């Protein structure tokens, strides 16, 4: 059995699955129940400045009948009285000494305000503090949340005010609503952050109701932007994670990163870990299905680690990171083509239309007698047996550019695979090539001459 325990910036937990600061961590009673289900830690719903919430607060993204592929919220930080939250935090930490209990906080951008809240948090016995510089709505207009996270100077200053007065590990939670995620990260590190977490929610307008013409969620006849999270944001979160973990400044500091954004299953979590996260947080999936999902997260990750021979989370963490590269460093000589497994193919012809209309017109329909045919059919023939004589899609490999569109539209698992094939082209990166022959990047004539040399034909 793999050891799932983690020590994240000095915060220990029996597993890397933590509930993110959000409605699932709103109260002591809830977190108590979550810990009973097995969550390794919880970041308390952000406490701090006094707020009033509105209703309704959520909009959901449904695609093809699948609910909550993303959620958008117009919610603020905790609206429960500060003293109640603090009392419950202390109670939970006393009851669950082995779990990570982290307190998320957000107050006015002043040293006094931070001093006051940090002292209160320390008194609860919590394991760490997470600074919420992310909230994209409601708080940012008041100079908190994203308003701090989006301005590196503010980020550094606020972080410094906290780290200079506490012994507790301080995690800075970054907002994704910036152009370069590395800038607030550098600022947080300069401010003394012991760890980073990301991503908070993304600015979003969820939808417009086509009957009422009202923006969703409809808040008394008005709408506003909210924060976007859930399965649909995972690739954005993974990208930001890797941007940080391939950044020299971040790497030099050695701060660990807690990943989140779109984690629903152990598989999602494993991807965050492979790309370098030291622990993960989950919000939307728990809001969709309840705390019980953590059981399979633990079980699935543990089984997968056993299968792969990983003994600890540290063995997994960052395993896939060295592959992260930049476009200019990729091998131009690598050539892949699509291969269709005729035994698996159900002849839906989705690959055919995708390649023919929007890729490189290199999938043919081939009849049983080996003759290429056009789509279409004889109107005088009908009945179920027509399915038995459908032509088969076949890739004309010399013309395939290896874009992988077909493999992505094919509804049958494992039916189209992208296979590496021998290439006539030299194995060189764009950066290396243009360093040797800079004219290739500026002159089409030079480019065409190079293609001719290499036997590259693009129709």
């Amino acid at each position, binding site marked *: 059995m793999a050891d799932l325990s983690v020590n994240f910036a000095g915060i220990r937990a029996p597993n890397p699955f933590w509930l993110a600061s959000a409605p699932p961590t709103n109260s002591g009673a809830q977190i108590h129940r979550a810990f009973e289900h097995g969550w390794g830690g919880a970041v308390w719903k952000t406490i701090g400045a006094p707020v009033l919430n509105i209703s309704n607060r959520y909009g959901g993204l449904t695609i093809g009948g699948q609910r909550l592929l993303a959620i958008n919220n117009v919610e603020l930080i905790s609206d429960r009285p500060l003293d109640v939250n603090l009392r419950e935090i202390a109670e939970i930490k006393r009851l669950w000494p082995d779990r990570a209990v982290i307190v998320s906080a957000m107050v006015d951008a002043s040293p006094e305000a931070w001093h006051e809240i940090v002292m209160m948090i320390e008194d609860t016995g919590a394991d760490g503090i997470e600074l919420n510089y992310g909230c994209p709505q409601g708080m940012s207009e008041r100079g908190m949340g994203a308003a701090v996270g989006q301005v590196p100077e503010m980020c550094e200053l606020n972080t410094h005010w906290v780290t200079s007065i506490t012994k507790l590990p301080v995690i800075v939670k970054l907002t994704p609503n910036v152009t370069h995620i590395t800038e607030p990260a550098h600022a947080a590190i300069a401010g003394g952050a012991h760890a980073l977490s990301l991503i908070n929610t993304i600015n979003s307008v969820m939808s417009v109701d086509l009957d009422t013409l009202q923006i969703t969620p409809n808040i008394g006849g008005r709408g506003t932007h909210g924060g976007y999270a859930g399965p649909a944001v995972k690739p954005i979160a993974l990208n930001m994670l890797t941007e940080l973990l391939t950044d020299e400044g971040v790497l030099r500091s050695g701060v660990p990163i807690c990943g989140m954004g779109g984690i629903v299953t152990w598989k999602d979590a494993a991807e965050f870990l492979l790309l370098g996260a030291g622990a993960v947080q989950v919000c939307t999936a728990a809001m969709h299905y309840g705390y019980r999902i953590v059981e399979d997260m633990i079980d699935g990750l543990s089984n997968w680690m056993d299968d792969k021979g990983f003994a600890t989370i540290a063995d997994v963490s960052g395993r896939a990171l060295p592959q992260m590269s930049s476009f200019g460093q990729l091998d131009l000589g690598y050539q892949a083509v699509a291969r269709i497994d005729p035994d698996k193919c159900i002849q*839906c012809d989705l690959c055919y239309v995708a390649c023919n209309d929007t890729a490189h017109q290199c999938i043919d329909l081939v009849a049983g007698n080996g003759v290429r045919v056009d789509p279409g059919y004889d109107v005088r023939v009908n009945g179920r047996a027509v*399915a038995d004589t459908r032509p088969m899609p076949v890739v004309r490999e010399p013309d395939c550019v290896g874009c992988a569109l077909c493999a992505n539209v094919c509804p049958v698992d494992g039916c189209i695979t992208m296979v590496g094939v021998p290439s006539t082209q030299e194995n060189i990166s764009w950066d290396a090539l243009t360093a040797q022959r800079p004219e290739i990047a500026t002159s089409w004539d030079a480019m065409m001459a190079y293609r001719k040399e290499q036997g590259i034909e693009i129709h």
Partner: protein
Amino acid sequence: MTDHALVDDALTPHDSFPFDPRFAPTHPPLSAHEAAVEANRCLYCYDAPCIQACPTHIDIPTFIRKIATDNLRGSARVILESNFLGGTCARVCPVEELCEGACVLNAEEKPIAIGRLQRHAVDHVQGRGLQMFTAGPATGRKVAVVGSGPAGLSVSAELAKLGHAVTLLEKRELGGGLSTYGIIVLREPVDVSLQEVEAVRALGVTVETGRELTDQAGLDALLSEYDAVFLGLGLGAVPAMGIPGEQHLIDGLQYIEDSKISPDSLPDAETVVVIGAGNTAIDAATIARRRGADVTMLYRRTDSEMTAYRHEYEFALSEGIQYRFLTQPVRVISDGGKVTGVECVKMVLGVPDTGGRPSPRPLPGSEFIVPCDAVIKAIGQEKPVLATELGLDVAGGYIVVNHDMQTSLPRVYAGGDCVRLRGTASTVMAVQDGKYAAVAIHQQLSQTQEAPHG
């Protein structure tokens, strides 16, 4: 989700036809949610096999996608454009043999419920009385259509859309042909069929019921008044069996018709024998069974030669209907005018006949009696005798037509069951015949400038 998609699209039953819960439709309508889930399961195949498998070639992926996008009106239009009787077909088509049988998902999981989705979309517009089409600009050409079954309705609608003036003559009191009188309520209530007749009327077609074409003179009269004539006569009654006690046999088609139009007139019987093993026999047996009788079907060959679809046979078994194969009735036994049983003889299978099915012959001395209090015969339908009377070429009793549904007489076309020498007689095939005929008639009318009747 828009409001219109939240409305459940069950057609409200018409009061003029009695509703009997024992004959509630086998498949209830899909709820809006069920339809959305099922529609989203469709892969939206390119050049999809289901389209070709449908004899009317409805663009199935397109109509299903429109259900998925909450565009039910657009969906119904796509269906009805290719098949004016899309509402009937959605209920009665042997989808396992057609569209659904060809669905690519047969290989993966289970095929898309194309028929039920089709019904969902068509019910949406028909339940609201929405007409999807308008008559084309008047061409001044006139066509007479004889018979208002699926073939007649289909050709009428297509011609009206092209701007021709159509008069539809029907000998019965109600239009719709077998959709109205012959398809059991379990599959199609009368109202659905009558709505399709109304939809044809809404296109400007003059529907005259109680008008029968009886002879050559009648056809000549039509040909002098109209530019073209289409015959969608269907087939006739169940043929006589020529056995003693014939007068006690209940005509299976009449039995089904009564179950739809006047259920109170059906005989009460506790033990019913049904002779035949085709789809009509199964339908008659199903009604008797649902009315509480013990039902046995007699068939002179074995289950592998039955003309009923496999899924129909399995349905009958699941209804608790019994089968006796290799059994030929030879006499109806009665006592004081009351049926008490059928005398039968055992059969053995011999060499295959011209149709490839082994011909059964009786085993001498094997007579036995199946006790019962009613006997229904459902051994097919008589060929259209009128055809010869009208001077049309016939083959095997069916009217001979070419690819364009043209008969041996100029300006006379035919389609539907009355021409179905080969292939399975079905509603959807009749609809497609109507479409072919409409194209050919339109072409004929476009080529001849002057109306030939002066």
